[in-house]
């Protein structure tokens, strides 16, 4: 079972252009009642893991997060981790676990996840003592990474060079969903660099040191990394509500 949840929200969201000039990506509105991507994630976490503290790391436009949470009930407010200069997900996670957390559910702050799938993932997280990498299927040509596994046990994460991808066919592969459990002991000793992402190096180091299994994300899931995907995610949520 995990002892902490870390939502990564310190990035600049440059790929969304004007949309994220004054609003951090996790604070883009996604549902009714002005609900944001981040609110949705926090609600999902609170529902499935009511006793587990939720931390959000902030840096870029950090004061926007304070303004956003200023009108909320203190009970619904997570804890914050402020970085004066953004450290990058790998370093942030390592520093976070030094605060005394050992088993962390890490969620990228731009994810819009299907409720039913989040519940299924949570069930698996609650009943396991191994690491989990949530992944989904995608045509190889559109993948930047591939999760290699043997009988769902993850062996390594492969990252593709953009130039090499043209040689691949439209074969469907499994790629990271941006949501993982990572145990402190599995990355103890890892030398992270500033601005380093979690995949592939930290995740590969981690799967070598701790039993890690894939959780297949079968239903819909959006990583809001372009204005088009943001529109699609909004449509989906509005349709559901």
């Amino acid at each position: 079972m995990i002892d902490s949840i870390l939502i990564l929200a310190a990035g600049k969201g440059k790929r969304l252009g004007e949309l994220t000039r004054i609003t951090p990506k996790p604070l883009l509105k996604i549902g009714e009642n002005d609900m944001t991507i981040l609110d949705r994630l926090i609600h999902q976490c609170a529902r499935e893991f009511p006793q587990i503290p939720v931390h959000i790391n902030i840096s870029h436009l950090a004061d926007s997060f304070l303004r956003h949470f200023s009108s909320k009930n203190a009970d619904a407010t997570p804890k914050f981790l402020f970085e004066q200069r953004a450290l990058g997900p790998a370093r942030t996670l390592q520093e976070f676990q030094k605060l005394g957390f050992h088993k962390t559910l890490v969620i990228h702050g731009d994810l819009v996840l299907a409720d039913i799938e989040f519940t299924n993932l949570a069930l698996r997280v609650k009943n396991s003592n191994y690491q989990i990498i949530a992944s989904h299927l995608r045509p190889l040509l559109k993948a930047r990474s591939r999760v290699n596994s043997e009988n769902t046990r993850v062996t390594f994460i492969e990252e593709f060079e953009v130039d090499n991808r043209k040689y691949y066919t439209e074969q469907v592969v499994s790629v990271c969903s941006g949501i993982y459990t990572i145990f402190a002991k599995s990355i103890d000793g890892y030398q992270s660099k500033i601005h380093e992402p979690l995949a592939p190096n930290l995740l590969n180091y981690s799967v070598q040191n701790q039993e890690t299994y894939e959780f297949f994300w079968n239903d819909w899931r959006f990583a809001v990394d372009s204005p088009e995907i943001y529109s699609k995610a909004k449509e989906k949520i509005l349709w559901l509500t």
Partner: protein
Amino acid sequence: MALPPTIGVFLDADGVLWPDRGAGEVINGLGEAVSRLTEFTEALGPRDYFRIVIITNQTLAARGDVGYFKFRSKVREVFNSLIKLNLIDSFEVCYHHPLSKKIFLRRKNCRCRKPAPGMILKIIRRYKLNPERCVLIGDRITDIAAGQAAGINTKILINNARAFEVNKGRQGSAHLEDLLEFSLCENLLESVAVIKELKKSD
């Protein structure tokens, strides 16, 4: 039966005890501080259970913009009044500044000016407090950094539009380079709920 260990409560002054209207507001802050601290201590519960201490950088005097001795005497008067009313136990004030006009106040690497943890560590030693059972309440990220450098587990940021501003003379501080953890509250009274969580662990 042994008494439960004391909880140390460290309070910043500007923006916590009175609105942040700029440096030097302490001179006019007594009435507001009495009102906020009365409300706060009543909500906290038994007063004996807590050591409440004010820790504050007084930048106006530190920079040399006002007469130091007269200002310090006024600050002491205000905080001593709060002690007499049993609203706080003690106070620590830093009058140093790296760019002070007054040579005797000019310090480049002062150990007490927040975000350095000197004032907090002094109080922890004085009252033999356990940092893990202390709470820091401030309205600037420099307050949070000082609390974290002192090993305080529970840090509360009072929501403030200028929370992440770092004044000239504090930039580049090693204490601000850490991953700084805090809970967010709207005001001093709201922070009581967070402190009570700590009390529950007894």
